[in-house]
């Protein structure tokens, strides 16, 4: 891991995000909720608008100029995403979001009820529920501060294990998981690995070839891109081995009274008219992050994460999840509870907005099992992106001090 210094100032990016000019009650907002969904830079908004304005047409089927332009922009976005992940464009399937990518795998692996999927118990509903529906989810236990006992993986791997699935960065902990070790352990037993990169993709450089993961999913809306578009990466041979997911137009080559043949990858898994403008916007978002440089983005995120945790530790009685993790393993995300009797996590988040125009998340963050196991009745989560500054972290903590004193 790279140490968080020197801090790369990315303040200049703020001008690219029109949402940051929005005011609440006459005051500028402090946006610390990108883990929920990130604001969009002008280039993404413009890419989406340009498609509507200049190119609206379906992809892959029209022969007129607009359709050709739309198809070109759509496939250019696939190339952009593939380069972002160091994958081949044929290995990039566009989905609605991470959730759909995981559901696609859960469906198309043809799992049986006795098949086992190993995952940390802190996983988001999206990386938990599909495995429960199609097979048997085997959760890895958690330490008291929420960090999974990653070292337990080997003892859970069994002949029934069909897949290992884990978040690269948990949406609760904000800590980079030791996915290389898990991939290595699983592969030594012949078990494929799915990485949920929903939180990590816009903070941590990703190289699916170097990682050697079998599947990886992420969502556009957390990557500064539009909502309703996501990415499923799969090794070509793994994707080819999957059974069909949705069928319909776009994924079929020939269809007659007796048979049909499907398109090649990646279109085989993209039935129906896709979210064309969403994909194009996602391409613009990824290009934006690549222009900044993902190493720079990561160092910025690490530095803000470290500052966030160090500052939160100064609040008396505050409990930070994954507080035992080394600071350099964190991205700009921390989840915590305050010692503030009478204040629930949602009322804290609401008050931060109403009183200080600071936007954070409060509640269970789609990780009920983690909260249940740690006996937490909700938590507050602050999360950063490229446009956030250390001053904003300080502003948050100063506001939180009103709840805790000290």
């Amino acid at each position, binding site marked *: 891991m790279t140490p968080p210094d020197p801090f790369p100032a990315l303040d200049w990016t703020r001008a690219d995000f029109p949402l940051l000019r929005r005011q609440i*009650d006459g005051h500028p907002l402090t946006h610390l909720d990108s883990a929920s969904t990130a604001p969009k830079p002008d280039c993404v908004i413009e890419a989406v608008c340009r498609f509507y304005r200049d190119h609206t047409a379906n992809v892959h089927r029209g022969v007129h100029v607009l359709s050709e332009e739309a198809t070109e922009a759509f496939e250019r976005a696939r190339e952009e995403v593939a380069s972002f992940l160091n994958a081949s464009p044929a290995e990039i399937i566009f989905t609605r979001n991470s959730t759909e990518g995981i559901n696609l795998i859960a469906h198309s692996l043809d799992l049986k009820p006795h098949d086992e999927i190993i995952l940390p118990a802190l996983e988001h509903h999206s990386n938990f529920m599909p495995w429960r529906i199609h097979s048997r989810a085997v959760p890895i236990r958690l330490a008291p501060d929420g960090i999974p006992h990653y070292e337990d993986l080997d003892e859970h791997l069994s002949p029934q294990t069909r897949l290992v699935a884990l978040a690269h960065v948990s949406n609760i902990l904000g800590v980079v998981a030791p996915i290389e070790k898990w991939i290595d352990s699983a592969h030594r037993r012949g078990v494929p690995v799915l990485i949920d990169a929903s939180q990590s993709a816009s903070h941590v450089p990703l190289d699916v070839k170097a990682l050697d993961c079998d599947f990886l999913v992420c969502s556009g809306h957390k990557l500064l891109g539009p909502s309703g578009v996501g990415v499923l990466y799969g090794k070509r041979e793994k994707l080819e081995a999957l059974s069909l997911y949705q069928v319909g137009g776009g994924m079929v080559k020939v269809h007659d009274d007796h048979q049909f043949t499907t398109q090649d990858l990646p279109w085989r898994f993209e039935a129906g008219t896709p979210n064309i403008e969403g994909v194009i916007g996602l391409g613009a978002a990824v290009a934006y992050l690549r222009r900044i440089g993902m190493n720079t983005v990561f160092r910025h995120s690490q530095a803000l994460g470290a500052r966030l945790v160090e500052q939160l530790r100064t609040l008396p009685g505050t409990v930070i999840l994954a507080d035992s993790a080394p600071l350099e393993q964190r991205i700009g995300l921390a989840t915590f509870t305050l010692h503030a*009797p*009478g204040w629930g996590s949602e009322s804290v988040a*609401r008050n931060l907005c*109403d009183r200080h125009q600071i936007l954070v998340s409060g*509640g269970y963050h789609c990780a009920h099992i983690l909260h249940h196991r740690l006996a937490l009745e909700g938590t507050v989560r602050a999360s950063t992106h490229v446009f956030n500054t250390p001053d904003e972290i300080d502003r948050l903590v100063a506001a939180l001090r009103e709840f805790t004193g000290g």
Partner: protein
Amino acid sequence: MQTLTPPPAAPVGERYLADCAMALDLALDQAPFYESWRPRDPGQTIPVDARYAALPVLTKRDLRAHMPRGFVPRPRDFQTGIATGEIELVSTSGTSEDRASIVWHQPWWDASEHSAASLYQGLDRVINGSQREAVLTTPLCAGTVCHIGELTQAERTLGRLLFLNQKADPNHWTPADKNRMLEELRLFEPDVLEADPAYLAILARYAAETGAPAPKPRFISLTYEFPSRVHYRQIRRLFPNTPILSSYGSTETGHVFTECEQGRFHQNAAFCRVDFQPFRNGRGAEHVGRIFISILNNPWMALVRFDVGDLIRLSTDPCPCGRTRGLTALAIEGRTRDLTFTVGGEAVTGGQVDRAIGDLEGLLAYQVEQPGPGTYRFRGVVEPAFEKQLFAEAEARLRGLYGDTARITTQRESAIGAEQSGKFRLTRTLFPWDTTDLFEPKGTVS
């Protein structure tokens, strides 16, 4: 737990003015928010009504920016109150720029409710602190939004209170939801059914259509949002003999007005002061204006001249019921933000629109939108048998209200959805406007 009871009977006005003076002095002297207001106070030698009139208006934005500590009078301490369980922090519903959090003191609220109940004959004997009460409103108001899924009836029953609803928009109720709520109402046998009229109208219509037996509450109190004639008609159909009254208040202010047996609204003067600011001449209907509420006798929160965002129509003659204490309103007119405007630019309240079209036979729900000056869209959910004549009649009546040159379109809807807050808007403009110059700056009536 500390209990508060309504003050004993006093000469009309004298006790009220003393309470008003005490609440104002407490706020100005001891609540941090009002420090900047002190120079505006003419002082205790001046009549209390004039002192209030000289002060600014408290807005929801102020509440958001300074709650809780700004409004807790010293030497009380918010954290201590929370720790001892005397108070809670409660959020109102609504979107960011409409909602607020407030300091909730249950004994004060209960006493305010009991006092307000005395303004309807017989109701105060029922609302005595031990009444069984069923609540039907948005789950945001009822506090049943949670992350642990559907709650059982036992989990929704807090002592003598049963919270019925678990969905943010009653249009999404399934038959099973409605059957469950009706069954729970029958089994719970509440003394009072406290309901959002839009929600109860939908439930009542379903019960009437399916022939479900009607629950038998002793009273129905309509609150949470403006009760339309459309709502009343559907509710009355299921509850033909149950006393139905409208109770006006808010989470911030407690119970402010209660509809009496004569259909007029009387101020709950033991627990709140109401200042009335009429429309400027020619900008809105006569005797209609917005209200600023100051709460009285609440040891934990000082609210002075709070613009609650609603409008009333003042009564100009005594109520036949004989009650004279505080203001009497002929009607609650709806929210200020729901004002629409005639072709000539005069403000039209939700109440005016409702009086114009709310009694249309076959109308089940409606919304009047004003996309721009002089243009209006009537959206109606109607019983099929009445559809043809209803839209023509609605258009004619709205033209009578907004002006002969009004451009009115009508649109049949299968449902009209609730806002994010879970509440409905009967009227709304789709263009920006503000209240500048709309109300008489010096015309406050107390």
